[in-house]
Protein backbone atom coordinates (compact mmCIF):
# COMPACT_ATOMS: atom_id res chain seq x y z
CA UNK A 1 0.00 0.00 0.00
CA UNK A 2 1.44 3.39 -1.01
CA UNK A 3 1.44 6.37 1.38
CA UNK A 4 0.65 4.09 4.31
CA UNK A 5 1.68 6.50 7.13
CA UNK A 6 -0.65 9.22 5.78
CA UNK A 7 -3.55 6.77 5.41
CA UNK A 8 -2.99 5.22 8.83
CA UNK A 9 -2.81 8.66 10.47
CA UNK A 10 -6.07 9.72 8.79
CA UNK A 11 -7.99 6.63 9.93
CA UNK A 12 -6.49 6.87 13.42
CA UNK A 13 -7.66 10.48 13.68
CA UNK A 14 -11.16 9.45 12.57
CA UNK A 15 -11.30 6.75 15.27
CA UNK A 16 -9.94 9.23 17.82
CA UNK A 17 -12.49 11.96 17.00
CA UNK A 18 -15.54 9.71 16.63
CA UNK A 19 -14.57 7.45 19.54
CA UNK A 20 -13.58 10.38 21.74
CA UNK A 21 -16.81 12.29 21.24
CA UNK A 22 -18.87 9.10 21.51
CA UNK A 23 -17.22 7.93 24.73
CA UNK A 24 -17.32 11.45 26.15
CA UNK A 25 -21.05 11.76 25.49
CA UNK A 26 -21.69 8.28 26.93
CA UNK A 27 -19.80 9.05 30.15
CA UNK A 28 -21.47 12.46 30.50
CA UNK A 29 -24.96 10.99 30.13
CA UNK A 30 -24.14 8.28 32.71
CA UNK A 31 -22.76 10.80 35.20
CA UNK A 32 -25.73 13.16 34.77
CA UNK A 33 -28.19 10.27 35.15
CA UNK A 34 -26.54 9.04 38.37
CA UNK A 35 -26.39 12.56 39.83
CA UNK A 36 -30.01 13.26 38.95
CA UNK A 37 -31.12 9.96 40.43
CA UNK A 38 -29.21 10.77 43.64
CA UNK A 39 -30.81 14.21 43.96
CA UNK A 40 -34.32 13.25 42.90
CA UNK A 41 -34.96 9.49 42.51
CA UNK A 42 -38.37 10.05 40.87
CA UNK A 43 -36.90 12.30 38.18
CA UNK A 44 -33.94 9.98 37.83
CA UNK A 45 -36.30 7.21 36.82
CA UNK A 46 -37.89 9.48 34.20
CA UNK A 47 -34.45 10.26 32.78
CA UNK A 48 -33.64 6.60 32.25
Amino acid at each position, binding site marked *: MTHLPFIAASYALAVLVLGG*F*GAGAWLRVG*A*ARRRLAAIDPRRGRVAR
Partner: protein
Amino acid sequence: MSTVAPAGDATPLAGSSLHRFANPGRFLRLSEVVLPWLVVPAVVLTVTGLGWGLFFAPADWQQGDAVRIMYVHVPSAWLASSGYFGLALCSLLSLVWRHPLADLAAVEIGPVGAGFTALCLATGSLWGKPMWGAWWVWDARLTSVLVLLFLYLGHIVLVRAFDDPVRGYRAGAILALVGVINLPIIKFSVDWWNTLHQPASITLLGAPSMAPLMLWPLLVSALGFSFAFAAIVVARLRAAVMERRIRGLLMARAVSR
Protein backbone atom coordinates in the same frame (compact mmCIF):
# COMPACT_ATOMS: atom_id res chain seq x y z
CA MET B 1 -51.04 14.33 18.12
CA SER B 2 -52.46 17.66 17.03
CA THR B 3 -50.08 20.40 16.01
CA VAL B 4 -52.71 23.11 16.51
CA ALA B 5 -52.10 25.43 19.46
CA PRO B 6 -54.72 25.11 22.20
CA ALA B 7 -57.31 27.88 22.53
CA GLY B 8 -55.94 30.85 24.40
CA ASP B 9 -52.32 29.86 23.80
CA ALA B 10 -50.47 32.90 22.49
CA THR B 11 -47.63 30.80 21.02
CA PRO B 12 -47.41 31.21 17.24
CA LEU B 13 -48.67 28.18 15.30
CA ALA B 14 -45.33 27.30 13.71
CA GLY B 15 -43.63 27.55 17.06
CA SER B 16 -46.25 25.51 18.90
CA SER B 17 -45.43 22.29 17.08
CA LEU B 18 -41.76 22.86 17.86
CA HIS B 19 -42.49 23.69 21.49
CA ARG B 20 -44.10 20.29 21.96
CA PHE B 21 -40.51 19.01 22.08
CA ALA B 22 -39.33 21.76 24.43
CA ASN B 23 -40.55 19.84 27.46
CA PRO B 24 -37.38 18.31 28.96
CA GLY B 25 -39.13 15.17 30.23
CA ARG B 26 -40.67 14.56 26.82
CA PHE B 27 -37.33 15.12 25.11
CA LEU B 28 -35.57 12.69 27.47
CA ARG B 29 -38.18 10.00 26.82
CA LEU B 30 -38.12 10.56 23.06
CA SER B 31 -34.33 10.66 22.83
CA GLU B 32 -34.05 7.47 24.87
CA VAL B 33 -36.05 5.70 22.14
CA VAL B 34 -34.27 7.41 19.25
CA LEU B 35 -30.67 7.07 20.47
CA PRO B 36 -30.20 3.31 19.87
CA TRP B 37 -31.59 3.81 16.34
CA LEU B 38 -28.81 6.32 15.76
CA VAL B 39 -25.95 4.54 17.54
CA VAL B 40 -26.33 1.12 15.91
CA PRO B 41 -26.41 2.40 12.28
CA ALA B 42 -23.59 4.83 13.15
CA VAL B 43 -21.29 2.01 14.29
CA VAL B 44 -22.29 -0.48 11.58
CA LEU B 45 -22.17 1.97 8.66
CA THR B 46 -18.98 3.76 9.76
CA VAL B 47 -17.07 0.51 10.34
CA THR B 48 -18.38 -0.91 7.05
CA GLY B 49 -17.67 2.25 5.05
CA LEU B 50 -14.17 2.79 6.44
CA GLY B 51 -13.27 -0.92 6.23
CA TRP B 52 -14.58 -1.09 2.66
CA GLY B 53 -12.66 2.04 1.69
CA LEU B 54 -9.45 0.94 3.39
CA PHE B 55 -9.26 -2.70 2.30
CA PHE B 56 -11.57 -3.38 -0.65
CA ALA B 57 -12.04 -0.18 -2.69
CA PRO B 58 -9.62 0.16 -5.62
CA ALA B 59 -6.62 2.48 -5.54
CA ASP B 60 -6.72 5.52 -7.81
CA TRP B 61 -4.72 5.34 -11.03
CA GLN B 62 -3.09 8.70 -10.31
CA GLN B 63 -3.09 9.02 -6.51
CA GLY B 64 -2.51 5.38 -5.62
CA ASP B 65 -3.68 4.33 -2.16
CA ALA B 66 -3.66 7.90 -0.84
CA VAL B 67 -7.18 8.20 -2.27
CA ARG B 68 -8.35 6.05 0.68
CA ILE B 69 -8.04 9.16 2.86
CA MET B 70 -11.12 10.35 0.96
CA TYR B 71 -13.36 7.95 2.95
CA VAL B 72 -12.55 9.93 6.11
CA HIS B 73 -11.92 13.38 4.65
CA VAL B 74 -15.06 13.83 2.51
CA PRO B 75 -17.63 12.65 5.12
CA SER B 76 -16.02 14.83 7.79
CA ALA B 77 -16.12 17.80 5.37
CA TRP B 78 -19.81 17.23 4.64
CA LEU B 79 -20.59 16.94 8.35
CA ALA B 80 -18.55 20.05 9.15
CA SER B 81 -20.75 22.12 6.81
CA SER B 82 -24.09 20.41 7.52
CA GLY B 83 -23.35 20.52 11.27
CA TYR B 84 -22.91 24.27 10.99
CA PHE B 85 -26.19 24.47 9.10
CA GLY B 86 -27.80 22.62 12.02
CA LEU B 87 -26.18 25.06 14.43
CA ALA B 88 -27.56 28.00 12.46
CA LEU B 89 -31.02 26.39 12.34
CA CYS B 90 -31.00 25.97 16.13
CA SER B 91 -29.88 29.60 16.43
CA LEU B 92 -32.82 30.70 14.28
CA LEU B 93 -35.24 28.65 16.42
CA SER B 94 -33.68 30.22 19.50
CA LEU B 95 -33.91 33.81 18.29
CA VAL B 96 -37.35 33.63 16.64
CA TRP B 97 -39.27 31.18 18.83
CA ARG B 98 -37.15 31.23 22.00
CA HIS B 99 -37.09 27.45 21.88
CA PRO B 100 -35.27 26.38 25.08
CA LEU B 101 -33.88 23.13 23.65
CA ALA B 102 -32.57 24.95 20.58
CA ASP B 103 -30.20 26.94 22.81
CA LEU B 104 -28.87 23.78 24.40
CA ALA B 105 -28.66 22.02 21.02
CA ALA B 106 -26.60 24.89 19.58
CA VAL B 107 -24.23 24.72 22.55
CA GLU B 108 -23.81 20.95 22.10
CA ILE B 109 -23.44 21.01 18.29
CA GLY B 110 -20.57 23.54 18.47
CA PRO B 111 -17.79 21.30 19.87
CA VAL B 112 -18.86 18.30 17.75
CA GLY B 113 -18.88 20.42 14.59
CA ALA B 114 -15.49 21.86 15.50
CA GLY B 115 -14.15 18.33 15.98
CA PHE B 116 -15.39 17.19 12.56
CA THR B 117 -14.01 20.37 10.94
CA ALA B 118 -10.62 19.81 12.58
CA LEU B 119 -10.72 16.20 11.35
CA CYS B 120 -11.51 17.44 7.83
CA LEU B 121 -8.60 19.90 7.90
CA ALA B 122 -6.16 17.38 9.40
CA THR B 123 -7.01 14.61 6.93
CA GLY B 124 -6.95 17.13 4.08
CA SER B 125 -3.45 18.06 5.18
CA LEU B 126 -2.45 14.39 5.34
CA TRP B 127 -3.85 13.94 1.82
CA GLY B 128 -2.31 17.16 0.52
CA LYS B 129 1.27 16.42 1.58
CA PRO B 130 1.81 13.36 -0.66
CA MET B 131 -0.34 14.72 -3.54
CA TRP B 132 0.54 18.45 -3.61
CA GLY B 133 3.85 18.32 -1.78
CA ALA B 134 2.58 20.69 0.93
CA TRP B 135 0.74 20.25 4.23
CA TRP B 136 -1.15 23.49 3.66
CA VAL B 137 -1.84 26.01 0.90
CA TRP B 138 -3.85 29.23 1.20
CA ASP B 139 -6.34 27.91 -1.29
CA ALA B 140 -9.94 29.24 -1.26
CA ARG B 141 -11.45 25.90 -0.18
CA LEU B 142 -8.93 25.27 2.60
CA THR B 143 -9.10 28.84 3.86
CA SER B 144 -12.91 28.93 3.92
CA VAL B 145 -12.99 25.65 5.90
CA LEU B 146 -10.42 27.13 8.31
CA VAL B 147 -12.79 30.10 8.72
CA LEU B 148 -15.56 27.57 9.48
CA LEU B 149 -13.40 26.11 12.26
CA PHE B 150 -12.87 29.60 13.68
CA LEU B 151 -16.63 30.24 13.53
CA TYR B 152 -17.25 27.05 15.51
CA LEU B 153 -14.55 27.99 18.05
CA GLY B 154 -15.92 31.53 18.29
CA HIS B 155 -19.40 30.16 18.98
CA ILE B 156 -18.06 27.78 21.66
CA VAL B 157 -16.29 30.64 23.43
CA LEU B 158 -19.08 33.21 23.00
CA VAL B 159 -21.93 31.12 24.46
CA ARG B 160 -19.80 30.58 27.59
CA ALA B 161 -18.51 34.16 27.87
CA PHE B 162 -21.45 35.70 29.78
CA ASP B 163 -22.54 35.34 33.39
CA ASP B 164 -26.12 35.26 32.13
CA PRO B 165 -26.38 32.14 29.91
CA VAL B 166 -29.30 33.62 27.92
CA ARG B 167 -27.12 36.52 26.77
CA GLY B 168 -24.49 34.00 25.72
CA TYR B 169 -27.07 32.00 23.75
CA ARG B 170 -28.28 35.16 21.97
CA ALA B 171 -24.76 36.34 21.10
CA GLY B 172 -23.81 32.85 19.88
CA ALA B 173 -26.99 32.62 17.80
CA ILE B 174 -26.23 35.93 16.06
CA LEU B 175 -22.66 34.81 15.32
CA ALA B 176 -23.93 31.46 13.99
CA LEU B 177 -26.44 33.15 11.67
CA VAL B 178 -23.88 35.66 10.36
CA GLY B 179 -21.46 32.78 9.75
CA VAL B 180 -23.92 30.98 7.46
CA ILE B 181 -22.57 33.18 4.66
CA ASN B 182 -19.44 31.01 4.77
CA LEU B 183 -21.30 27.82 3.76
CA PRO B 184 -21.94 28.77 0.08
CA ILE B 185 -18.40 30.17 -0.04
CA ILE B 186 -17.06 26.75 1.01
CA LYS B 187 -19.34 24.95 -1.45
CA PHE B 188 -18.61 27.12 -4.49
CA SER B 189 -15.02 28.14 -3.68
CA VAL B 190 -13.69 25.52 -6.12
CA ASP B 191 -15.92 26.96 -8.89
CA TRP B 192 -15.47 30.68 -8.17
CA TRP B 193 -11.67 30.66 -7.86
CA ASN B 194 -8.82 28.71 -9.37
CA THR B 195 -7.95 26.36 -6.54
CA LEU B 196 -5.51 23.54 -5.99
CA HIS B 197 -8.35 21.64 -4.35
CA GLN B 198 -10.23 19.49 -6.83
CA PRO B 199 -13.83 20.40 -7.80
CA ALA B 200 -16.81 18.42 -6.49
CA SER B 201 -16.97 14.82 -7.72
CA ILE B 202 -20.55 14.37 -6.48
CA THR B 203 -23.32 16.87 -7.17
CA LEU B 204 -27.04 16.81 -6.43
CA LEU B 205 -28.11 17.13 -10.07
CA GLY B 206 -25.31 15.70 -12.18
CA ALA B 207 -23.97 12.16 -12.39
CA PRO B 208 -20.98 11.54 -10.09
CA SER B 209 -17.58 11.64 -11.78
CA MET B 210 -16.39 8.76 -9.64
CA ALA B 211 -16.26 4.99 -10.20
CA PRO B 212 -19.09 3.15 -8.39
CA LEU B 213 -16.48 0.97 -6.68
CA MET B 214 -15.25 4.12 -4.91
CA LEU B 215 -18.60 5.91 -4.70
CA TRP B 216 -20.45 3.25 -2.67
CA PRO B 217 -17.98 2.98 0.23
CA LEU B 218 -17.84 6.79 0.31
CA LEU B 219 -21.64 7.03 0.59
CA VAL B 220 -21.76 4.31 3.27
CA SER B 221 -19.02 6.06 5.24
CA ALA B 222 -20.78 9.44 4.88
CA LEU B 223 -24.05 7.92 6.10
CA GLY B 224 -22.24 6.36 9.07
CA PHE B 225 -20.58 9.69 9.94
CA SER B 226 -23.99 11.40 9.70
CA PHE B 227 -25.58 8.93 12.11
CA ALA B 228 -22.56 9.26 14.41
CA PHE B 229 -22.82 13.06 14.42
CA ALA B 230 -26.54 12.90 15.19
CA ALA B 231 -26.06 10.27 17.92
CA ILE B 232 -23.29 12.26 19.61
CA VAL B 233 -25.34 15.49 19.54
CA VAL B 234 -28.50 13.79 20.87
CA ALA B 235 -26.52 12.09 23.67
CA ARG B 236 -24.80 15.36 24.61
CA LEU B 237 -28.17 17.12 24.54
CA ARG B 238 -29.64 14.47 26.85
CA ALA B 239 -26.79 15.07 29.27
CA ALA B 240 -27.22 18.86 29.02
CA VAL B 241 -30.96 18.63 29.79
CA MET B 242 -30.28 16.46 32.83
CA GLU B 243 -27.47 18.76 34.01
CA ARG B 244 -29.78 21.76 33.73
CA ARG B 245 -32.39 19.92 35.76
CA ILE B 246 -29.76 19.09 38.40
CA ARG B 247 -28.72 22.76 38.61
CA GLY B 248 -32.37 23.80 38.98
CA LEU B 249 -32.99 21.30 41.77
CA LEU B 250 -29.84 22.31 43.64
CA MET B 251 -30.71 26.00 43.36
CA ALA B 252 -34.27 25.33 44.57
CA ARG B 253 -32.85 23.46 47.56
CA ALA B 254 -30.38 26.26 48.33
CA VAL B 255 -33.14 28.88 48.18
CA SER B 256 -35.49 26.85 50.41
CA ARG B 257 -32.85 26.53 53.16
